[in-house]
């Protein structure tokens, strides 16, 4: 299998765990995986991306423009920022809830994310998820990374089985949060399945 998966969002949203679970799941299924993260000056509140490249055909650790099969966007503005990476027939799974820049109160930009969502809808095939809504049953927005992973897996576009991801969650999440994370993943999985029906 060859697949390029781009995960983007804002520092502190948990993108790294999502990328690590995807990479480990693909490896568990026997694929060669390369990945890369943007770290450094990017700290809390800055844009972050993770590139996961599955298969023998990838040499660069970063996904080239127009190559990503799937974008997991934790934030609508970040989805637009990274849209250049998406293939023509790729899919973007996008959180509709905007994260305002930390400098918003000092320099109001009027950014709400709605124009970005409309733009994405007009440009590519998308599955939209509202983190405010889907995280409610789990009591914390911290579970969104696992939920969006579930949506991607459920849509069938991730190319990784439900069981493999569940096994990796078990491996990588602290004991007392395993069950909640599994439930969050399965809730996302259902959303993904029904979105492509």
């Amino acid at each position, binding site marked *: 299998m060859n697949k390029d998966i781009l995960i983007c969002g*804002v520092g502190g949203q948990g993108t790294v765990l999502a990328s690590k679970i995807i*990479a480990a799941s693909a*490896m568990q299924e026997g694929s*060669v*995986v*390369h*990945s*890369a*993260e*943007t*770290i*450094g*000056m*990017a*700290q*809390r*509140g*800055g*844009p972050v991306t993770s590139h996961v490249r599955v298969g023998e*055909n*990838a*040499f*660069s*650790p*970063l996904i*080239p*423009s*127009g*190559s990503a099969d799937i974008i997991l966007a934790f934030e609508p*503005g970040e989805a*637009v*920022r990274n*849209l*250049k990476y*998406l*293939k*023509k027939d*790729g899919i973007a799974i996008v959180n509709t809830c905007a994260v*305002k*820049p*930390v*400098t*918003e*109160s*000092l320099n*109001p*930009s009027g*950014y709400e994310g709605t*124009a*970005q969502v409309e*733009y994405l809808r007009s*440009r*590519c095939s998308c599955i939209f998820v509202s983190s405010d809504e889907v995280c409610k049953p789990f009591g914390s927005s911290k579970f969104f990374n696992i939920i969006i992973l579930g949506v991607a897996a459920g849509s069938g576009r991730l190319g990784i089985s439900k069981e493999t991801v569940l096994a990796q969650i078990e491996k990588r999440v602290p004991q007392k949060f395993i069950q909640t994370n599994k439930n969050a993943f399965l809730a996302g999985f259902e959303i993904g399945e029904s979105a492509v029906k």
Partner: protein
Amino acid sequence: MGNGAIALGALAAGVNLVAGYPGTPSSEIIETVSKYPHEGVHLEWSVNEKAALEVAVAAAYSGARALVTMKQMGLNVASDPLMSVAYVGVKGGLVLVSADDPGPISSQTEQDTRRYADFCRIPVFDPSSPEEAYTMIGDAFEYSEKYGTPVLFRPTTRVCHAYASIDIPDKTSPKEYDGFIKDSGRWVIFPRLSYLNHGRIEERNVEIGKDFSAYSFNTVQNPEAEKAVVTSGISYAYVRECLKNRSDVRLIRIATAFPFPEDFVLGALDGVSEVLCIEELSPYIEEQILKTAGMHHLDLTVHGKLDGSVPHNGENSVELSAKILSGFPGVQTANGQVDLSGSPALPVRPPVLCAGCPHRASFYAVKQAMKGQKAFFCGDIGCYTLGNAMPLDMVDTCLCMGAGITMAQGMNYTNDGVCFAFTGDSTFFASGMTGVVNAVYNEADIILCVLDNSTTAMTGHQPHPGTGRNMMGNFVEKVDIAKVLEGMGVRKIVTVNPLDLEKSIKAVRECAAEKGVKAIIFKSPCIAITKPSGRCSVDSGKCINCKKCIREIGCPALVTADGKVTIDRNLCTGCSLCSQICPVGAIGGEEHE
């Protein structure tokens, strides 16, 4: 991670000592060693890169294998011992990892470590992936011992921070070694020794160049093609990605830029009339190819940075490589993008000091105390460089590690006004102390502000001499900054909690009223290593919506909702700086609600 691969490769090579100073993108090498079994290996964060290299040199003189890690600008700090040890040579393997940062993504310069290899006349290895880095670091130790020379190892950010899976041995153990054998004719550098060794080194480098010509990571693909691309490091991965499924371009990759593998390159270029050099940072390989072509009278056209085909600055990518190559043998970017026209404006997310960061309070106190007075603010390297952002605007200069202290002195000698130096605790130990002695000795009138947050925050919270922990896992006596300053002759030293605004302003005013070198230690731990002390909230009944809090301190936790000031509970750490500046006392702790 590539940095992890370097660490594990060094452990597999039986490394005995690992030392370094944190710096993006190199910091995770030492952190990886500390997380894996490394019994019998001495591991340390040194106070700076020069110290790290000197510690390692003695180990290598003793026959042990030593690894030193730093970012590329750290190599400038370590260049003094590096140049000398290049002349003296080593017995045990000495490998210095200097991670370059094309872009630059988180550095002050776009310098090229391969130039240092050439300058110091020592070999350099240039991996293109984490997998290669794992193997090559072992090779670097072998070559170091075979030729008795320190060796440079030059990954770049995209290799350091890329992930791949690597099989590692279950168990590694440090190499057995003899220990130091006295021989002053060998280990004491004198002009006569340098003269003799200089000749030997140049002869030896010819040999290494021949040896490198057979090195397995110097490779040629499509040897029949007439046009060639020469590349190195991560650019090899990008170019390979562009040229996959193509056989009409010869792809030559040079993993050992110095000593230049001339025989290999002459063979690889046989029958080629046009070559394009794609490399990041400086046109090092390009220049070597031009030199080789000149010496051997080759009929060869060389494209690259020097003829404008490739940009000098910034990092490379698959897209950029494809664009460069499209002017050459007609390569296309195969992938179709979605229609990107008409994109809406996107929010800018600049890096800012975290909510509750004690640096914000320190800067604000100095700013308030100096209101209406002429003052100069010399900053330094660390999170606190972000004090330059509005609304604080408290960093007038930032040059290199430790320069804030000495530059404040130069400001003082050439300008009228109060001169401040801001330095972090880790920076103070790394290269600030000599500057303080210089200020005392040369009678500068400056105020040194040590922003002591008890960690090396910017690079990922590494311990330092003031934290009381070291990388051997031991608790050690903390080196007390106030006592150090006192010992160096600083007469007035005030330690204050920056989160107490009134006391902090008073301390600054007191220091500004006195002559000589004064120091204020603003002591409060980094919010990322401590639990929040509580939360603040706005009493909407009292708030007059003047927004002074937002305008003056720019804390990310202060937000407006429906035109009213409120505090983001997820970000607030309860530092209470905003409550201390509110003119109507509308901000307080949680009991407020």
